[in-house]
C-alpha cells in the first residue's frame, strides 16, 4: 500500500495499469489494494480513457481544501500542493536565472499554480491558503520584505497583493528557512523534537527556531537570521548594510571564487558534486565553510539549547564532506561534558522542504471550516 501511495504522491494521478507498471505489483494486487484504499477514503477513482480503452484513474482523496506552497528562491521557483491530511499532491521545481526579474517570475508563478492545480484535477476554488516562501528576511508582522537590499529587485514588490488579486483565499509570505523548519517538524527530522534549530546552508545561510513545538518568529519575524551574524569585523560589506556577516563568507559567489584560478568557472552544484567525488580543493572549500557555519550554530545553541540541529540546503547534500567538519566545529564550542549532546542531523527532505513547508503552514494558517 505504501508503494502505491508513494507512486501517486511522486507522479500524480495515474491509472491502475500504470500503477502496476510503476510499482512492479501485479494488476490484480493493485486492483485489490486500490479498492481497499478507496474504502478507507485515502484514494478516489474516476473513469478515464487510455490508449482508446476505458481505465480507472487513481488519485489521492482531498479532504476539505488544499494548501499551496510556493518557493521563490535565488535561482529556482518551486511549488508544492498538499491537502489537510498533509499528503503531497504535487511538487514541481522550475530552474530560474540568478537575479530573475519580479515581473516575469510572478507571472510564471501564477501560471505554475494554475497548471499544477489543473494537473491534479482540482480547481482554484479549493485552495484554502497560499504561502509564498522567499529567500530573504521577511517582516512577518507587516507581510513584506524585512531587510531591504538582499533581493534588490523585489524590495518594493507587494507579493501578497499580487497573488491575493488572482485567488480568493488568504495569501502569506514568509522566510524560506521558516517554511523548511515547518516541513521538518511535520514530515522531516524534527517530528520527535519540540525544540530544534533548523539551518539552511547553501547560497547564503538562514535558520529557524522551533521552541516548545511552535515556530519562533520573534517580534518582527526576523528571528534566526544567522546569515547576518558577524564572523569577521574586517570582512566584506554585506548586502544588508553591515560588515563581515556569515553570508559574505558562505554564499555561492564567494565559495566558487576561491577556486576560479585552479578550477575555472564553477557553480555551487559543481562545487558540491566535485567535493563529494573527492576533489581536494573543493573539499577544502566545503569544509572551511562548514567550520564558519558551525561556529555560528554553536553560539546560537548556547542561547537556545535545542534538542537537535537539522541541516538543510544545498551544502548538506555534499554529505560527510560538509557534515563532519560541521559536527566537529559545533562540538568544540558546546559544553564538552553535556549529559545529552545535541544531535546534528542532515535533513531527509532537503530538496523539497521549503515549498512543502510553505504548503503545510498555509493550511495551518487557513481559516478552518473553509
Amino acid at each position: 500500500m505504501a508503494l502505491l501511495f508513494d507512486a501517486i504522491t511522486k507522479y500524480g494521478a495515474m491509472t491502475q495499469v500504470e500503477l502496476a507498471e510503476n510499482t512492479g505489483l501485479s494488476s490484480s494486487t493493485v486492483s485489490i489494494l486500490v479498492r481497499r484504499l478507496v474504502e478507507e477514503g485515502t484514494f478516489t477513482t474516476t473513469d478515464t480513457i487510455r490508449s482508446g480503452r476505458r481505465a480507472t484513474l487513481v488519485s489521492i482523496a482531498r479532504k476539505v481544501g488544499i494548501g499551496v506552497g510556493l518557493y521563490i528562491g535565488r535561482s529556482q521557483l518551486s511549488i508544492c500542493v498538499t491537502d489537510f491530511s498533509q499528503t503531497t499532491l504535487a511538487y514541481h521545481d522550475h530552474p530560474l536565472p540568478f537575479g530573475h526579474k519580479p515581473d516575469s517570475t510572478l507571472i510564471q508563478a501564477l501560471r505554475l499554480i494554475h497548471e499544477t492545480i489543473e494537473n491534479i484535477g482540482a480547481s482554484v476554488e479549493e485552495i484554502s491558503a497560499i504561502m509564498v516562501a522567499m529567500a530573504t528576511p521577511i517582516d512577518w508582522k507587516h507581510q513584506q520584505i524585512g531587510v531591504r537590499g538582499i533581493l534588490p529587485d523585489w524590495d518594493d514588490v507587494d507579493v501578497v497583493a499580487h497573488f491575493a488579486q488572482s485567488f480568493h483565499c488568504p495569501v502569506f509570505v514568509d522566510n524560506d528557512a521558516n517554511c523548511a523548519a515547518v516541513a521538518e517538524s511535520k514530515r522531516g527530522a524534527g517530528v520527535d523534537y519540540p525544540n530544534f534549530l533548523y539551518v539552511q546552508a547553501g547560497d547564503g545561510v538562514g535558520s529557524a527556531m522551533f521552541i516548545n513545538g511552535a515556530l519562533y518568529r520573534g517580534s518582527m519575524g526576523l528571528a534566526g537570521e544567522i546569515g547576518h551574524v558577524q564572523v569577521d569585523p574586517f570582512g566584506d560589506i554585506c548586502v544588508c548594510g553591515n560588515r563581515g556577516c556569515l553570508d559574505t563568507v558562505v554564499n555561492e559567489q564567494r565559495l566558487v571564487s576561491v577556486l576560479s584560478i585552479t578550477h575555472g568557472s564553477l557553480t555551487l552544484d559543481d562545487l558540491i558534486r566535485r567535493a563529494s567525488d573527492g576533489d581536494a580543493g573543493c573539499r577544502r572549500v566545503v569544509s572551511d565553510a562548514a567550520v564558519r557555519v558551525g561556529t555560528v550554530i554553536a553560539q546560537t545553541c548556547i542561547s537556545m539549547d535545542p534538542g537537535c540541529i537539522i541541516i538543510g540546503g544545498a551544502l548538506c547534500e555534499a554529505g560527510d564532506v560538509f557534515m563532519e567538519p560541521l559536527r566537529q566545529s559545533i562540538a568544540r564550542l558546546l559544553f564538552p561534558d553535556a549529559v545529552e549532546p545535541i544531535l546534528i542531523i542532515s535533513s531527509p527532505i532537503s530538496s523539497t522542504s521549503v515549498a512543502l513547508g510553505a504548503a503545510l503552514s498555509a493550511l495551518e494558517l487557513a481559516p478552518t471550516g473553509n
Partner: protein
Amino acid sequence: MTALLEVQHLGLSFDYVDTLHDVSLTMHDHEVVAIVGDNGAGKSTLLKTIAGVHMPDTGRILVRGEETHISSIKVANALGITAIFQDVSFCMNLDIAANIFLGQEIASGITTRDDTAMHLKARKILSTLTSPLSAFRSMDGLSHGEMQTVAIARAMLNDPEIVLMDEPTASLSVIQTAQVLSYIKELRSQGKAILLVCHNLPDVFAVADRIAIMRHGKIVAIHQTHETTYEQVIAEIAGARHVNEEFVNNDTVPVPHKLIDRYN
C-alpha cells in the same frame, strides 16, 4: 583539459547566402552552452552541422581533440553526439519504449525483437531523467511536453557525451518547461556537454553556463552567463551598438576596435 567539442572557423553557404560564417566554439564536459539569436541567424544550421545533417564548406570540427568528418547523423552518433531536433516525429501507434528504440531495436536472435529488454532499458532511461512516464504508454495522447521527454530519452539511448537540443522548451507549458530544464541540469551534472538553441532568455539564463549570440551566420559574442545581463544579450541579438557616454558628443573618437571586430 581537452575540449569535448571544438568547432573551428566553420563556414557553410546555401546558394549565395552565407548561413555560417567563420563560426568557432568550444564545449567542455559538465557544461551547457546556449546559442541565441534572431530567426535565420544560423543557430539551427550550426546545430545541424555538428549533428551531421549538413557538411561544412570550410572549417574543422574536433571531438575530444581529434579532427572528424561528420558526414551523417550515424557518424555523429558513433562519436557520442546526439541531436534532439525541433520537429521530432514519432510512430503514434506504438508505445513509448518502441519509440525510444525506433530504428535501434534490441534483437534477440536474428529475426525477433527483445521487447522485455527494450522496456527495461526504456524504464531505466526514463527514471534517470526522473520522468514519471510509463514505458508502456502509447504515444497517442501524450502532451507536447511528454513527447519532448520521449525525444530526450531517445537521445540518451547510446549514452552520448554531447547533446544538441533545438528549442526544447518551445510551446511547452510551465510545468513541462520546468521538467525539461531540470532534465538539462541533470544531464549536465552527469558530465554531458549540452548545446542548447533556445529563444526564451529566462530559460537560457536559468540553465546555461555560457551564452553565444549569433547574428547573420556569425557568433558576435560569447558570455559567461553570470557576467552578462538580459539587456546586453538582447542588444547583441538585435545588433545594437553600445553607445558609450563619453563618445556621444565627440565625433573624433573612433568606435573601439572591440566593437568593430564584433559587428563587422
